[in-house]
């Protein structure tokens, strides 16, 4: 066996309070395509950020050998100079500039600060031919589709004389045809001696192109499997094997005992979404949510599992006042009556609440205090004749500060200064006080510590026990298994399964979640 092109040894990376990577070893052979698999939060992106210098040398422990010699990158430019190029999931192209300008952005073909356009175009044309892109280099990025933009990113990487290409979920935003083209290109690049690390959730893609696969879980390397022997024949790595590696962790999260709702309308359908289809707000060819139907009964907690990009958040936000994408078709029923939820106020009026996955962008007014954040969604109730009853508002906020155990000296603390867990409790308080019948919780425990998680689970349990219908979106399977009565799975915008609690295991869910479109 030849010497590896990349060796990462005993990498440990900690963020305040969290160990993101712990003693990770990772090796890439020259000219191989090496896939990295793992659940959301397993540490894949962090590992790549360590490698590419986003987390500079010194901020992690362990050592990196590239081409046999130790390296210490202080930023991305340092790693690019050595031929390591990372292509992020969100493309980093400037939409108003041309293909050629984007390829050479930050790396312009210039003498004494003056750009040579002829040389730029000549080189760009060559690179575009190499990646098989028929467009002219003068074409604006905004005029070509996402699939072609992905190719431009690769051309940009090639312009930097790449030796190791890192692709973070390269096909997540692409349709089947574009995905196929991209994978072919990666195989071609391998022929030219360029090694490639590919983070992917799509197991069939991994089986198609990868030579080996490394599985990460909870910040550790679990195992590295050879997908293809060096002789070229496919080794026996089944998707089941990979899935088991991805999810096989101990259930060390704890969950409160579920309390049953015993009201007379228990079991009645509270929310029913039928044939819901939504298109991407910009790329209108893509159906982000494709003919989805689901129901949630009173007192029931229903999970939605899915990997990143499966369309869960998009489904939730579009149901909640069409806050995402372009609505195409579908109906919403609350309490078995069809309702219109075309705007957020309409959705709120019909008793639907949505607690966002991104509390800082969509959930909180960070510069305002706890008091006013909690009251924002229910001001009319606190304001007879349009004037806010301040003392009542403050008393409500104090009540939630106590009952939700929000750790802050007073309700006038600015939410920016609270920890993630406490911020999440503020968002939850806001929507609980709005007293909805249906709560859609989108990753309610993301980025908060174990103790606070338990408190949030307890709150969710109490909501269901009071007869609320809860739709629980999460990327953490143990949490869904621990809390939900039923779990839907989504992949690529479609419902791919509905699993009752008794039958649900991580393996079953993961199989549904990684189903490709049929």
């Amino acid at each position: 066996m030849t010497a590896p092109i990349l060796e990462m040894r005993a990498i440990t990376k900690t963020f305040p309070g969290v160990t993101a990577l712990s003693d990770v070893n990772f090796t890439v052979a020259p000219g191989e395509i090496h896939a990295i698999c793992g659940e959301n939060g397993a540490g894949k992106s962090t590992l790549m950020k360590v490698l590419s210098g986003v987390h500079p040398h010194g901020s992690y422990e362990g050592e990196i050998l590239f081409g046999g010699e130790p390296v210490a990158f202080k930023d991305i430019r340092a790693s690019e100079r050595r031929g390591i190029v990372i292509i992020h999931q969100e493309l980093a192209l400037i939409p108003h500039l041309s293909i050629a300008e984007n390829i050479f952005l930050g790396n312009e073909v210039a003498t004494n600060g003056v750009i040579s356009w002829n040389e730029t175009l000549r080189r760009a044309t060559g690179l575009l031919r190499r990646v098989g892109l028929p467009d002219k280099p003068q074409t604006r990025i905004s005029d070509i589709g996402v699939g072609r933009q992905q190719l431009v990113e690769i051309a940009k990487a090639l312009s930097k004389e790449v030796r190791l290409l890192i692709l973070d979920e390269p096909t997540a935003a692409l349709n089947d045809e574009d995905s196929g083209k991209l994978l072919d290109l990666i195989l071609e690049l391998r022929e030219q001696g360029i090694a490639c690390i590919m983070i992917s959730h799509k197991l069939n893609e991994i089986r198609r192109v990868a030579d080996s696969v490394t599985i990460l879980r909870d910040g550790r390397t679990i195992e590295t499997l050879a997908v293809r022997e060096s002789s070229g024949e496919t080794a026996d790595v089944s998707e089941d094997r990979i899935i088991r590696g991805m999810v096989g962790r101990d259930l060390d999260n704890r969950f409160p005992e579920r309390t049953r709702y015993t009201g007379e309308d228990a079991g009645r359908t509270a929310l029913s979404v039928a044939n819901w289809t939504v298109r991407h707000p910009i790329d209108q060819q893509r159906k982000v949510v494709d003919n989805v139907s689901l129901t949630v009964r009173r007192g029931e907690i229903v999970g939605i599992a899915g990997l990143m990009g499966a369309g869960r958040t998009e489904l939730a936000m579009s149901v909640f006042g069409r806050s995402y994408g372009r609505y195409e078709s579908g109906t919403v029923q609350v309490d078995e009556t069809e309702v219109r939820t075309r705007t957020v106020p309409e959705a709120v009026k019909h008793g639907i609440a949505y607690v966002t996955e991104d509390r800082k962008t969509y959930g909180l007014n960070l510069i305002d205090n706890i008091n006013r954040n909690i009251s924002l969604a229910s001001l009319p109730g606190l304001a007879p004749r349009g004037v806010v009853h301040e003392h009542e508002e403050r008393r409500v906020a104090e009540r939630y500060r106590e009952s939700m155990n929000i750790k802050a000296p007073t309700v006038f603390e600015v939410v920016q200064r609270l920890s993630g867990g406490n911020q999440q409790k503020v968002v939850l308080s806001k929507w609980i006080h709005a007293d909805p019948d249906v709560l859609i919780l989108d990753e309610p425990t993301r980025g908060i510590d174990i103790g606070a998680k338990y408190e949030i689970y307890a709150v969710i349990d109490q909501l269901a026990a009071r007869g609320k219908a809860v739709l629980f979106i999460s990327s953490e399977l143990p949490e869904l298994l621990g809390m939900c009565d039923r779990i839907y799975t989504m992949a690529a915008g479609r419902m791919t399964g509905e699993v009752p609690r008794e039958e649900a295991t991580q393996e079953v869910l993961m199989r549904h979640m990684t189903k490709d479109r049929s």
Partner: protein
Amino acid sequence: MTTTSTPPTDTPPGRDGGGQSRSPGAVLLRSLRTNMRQYGMLVALAFIIVLFQIWTDGTLLLPNNVSNLIQQNSYILILAMGMMLVIVAGHIDLSVGSLVAFVGAMSGVMIIKHDFPWVLALIISLLIGAAAGAWQGFWIAYVGIPAFIVTLAGMLLFRGATQIVLEGQSIAPYPEGFQNIAQGFIPEMGPYTQYHNPTLVLGVLVTAFLLFQEWRDRRRQVQYELDVLPFNIWVLKCVAIVAAVVAFTLTLASFRGVPVVLLIMCGLLIGLGYVMRNAVIGRHIYALGGNKAAAKLSGVKDQRVTFLVFVNMGVLAALAGVVYAARLNAATPNAGNVFELEAIAACFIGGASMSGGVGTVLGAVIGGLVLGVLNNGMSLVGIGTDYQQVIKGLVLLAAVAFDVWNKRRVGS
């Protein structure tokens, strides 16, 4: 000055849960620290007043100059109050100076050229302002064009319209009733005293009202079991309020009494302050400026709120236009030049944030007064307008720099 429109002032930055110290000094200090911006500007205003009071050998606070100060700055203060709402909502309005001119011109045409009764002309003028605000609000809120661009267009548009309406000429004079909006005082009544009687009565009423307000607030806070200021500090606060109102009342009463325009401004300050603090729409304005996406997802009707903010600005610009025309006793094509910039500067000096979501109506007034006293004081000591501009520019920069520094120090 009233205290009704200040935001909740008891926001301790303490980090340890529950264990706040209750000693009066600590409470006061905590309150001071968190309201650094507002108090900082009040202190700066007081400092500037004292400085010029000494520098001008006491001319600054002579009763006639105080009246003059109020009347001279009224239109900027009116604009600044409306501008504060716009800035809090996360927008800007560059057109108000031109709108002042246009509405002034329309009032002149109606009253002087066509002999409209001035009350009717006043009402129509305010409606014109509302329509202009609605026009701009439509493009900003419903079409989604940035306010900077829409109001830049408005700035050109209304200035041009002014020149068309006036055919490039000033027109004058206005009837006395109209002039009184800016130049008049409330009429004297009752027997001769050394002071202006209705002003004294008003002063007593305002004092009583403020004390009542303080007392009711305190009682409610106790009733709801919320933290209250320690009793002795609270008494001190009440004494300070009474002293300030009494001093102001006596100053005004020893000249010609309360200027009409002061009543208008106080009404606006109390009304808008109340709306911003207590009304649902006020909360929605802060929420929109603070985080538009989160506000929308909480059910705030962002388009309607934005639209109404600009309608309000239009009406206030029209009011300022009427006041300015009345003060000048003429409608001129150049009226309101750079008023928009003065109003915007007043807001930023008074604690507004460029990114929206922060600021109070009282802050805008304080900011406007800082600029106004500087103008007046510097003119009294004979500093030329050239140097005045330089100094005002530096004051604006210093106020905002202080803000930035203060925020970084607190570490948010």
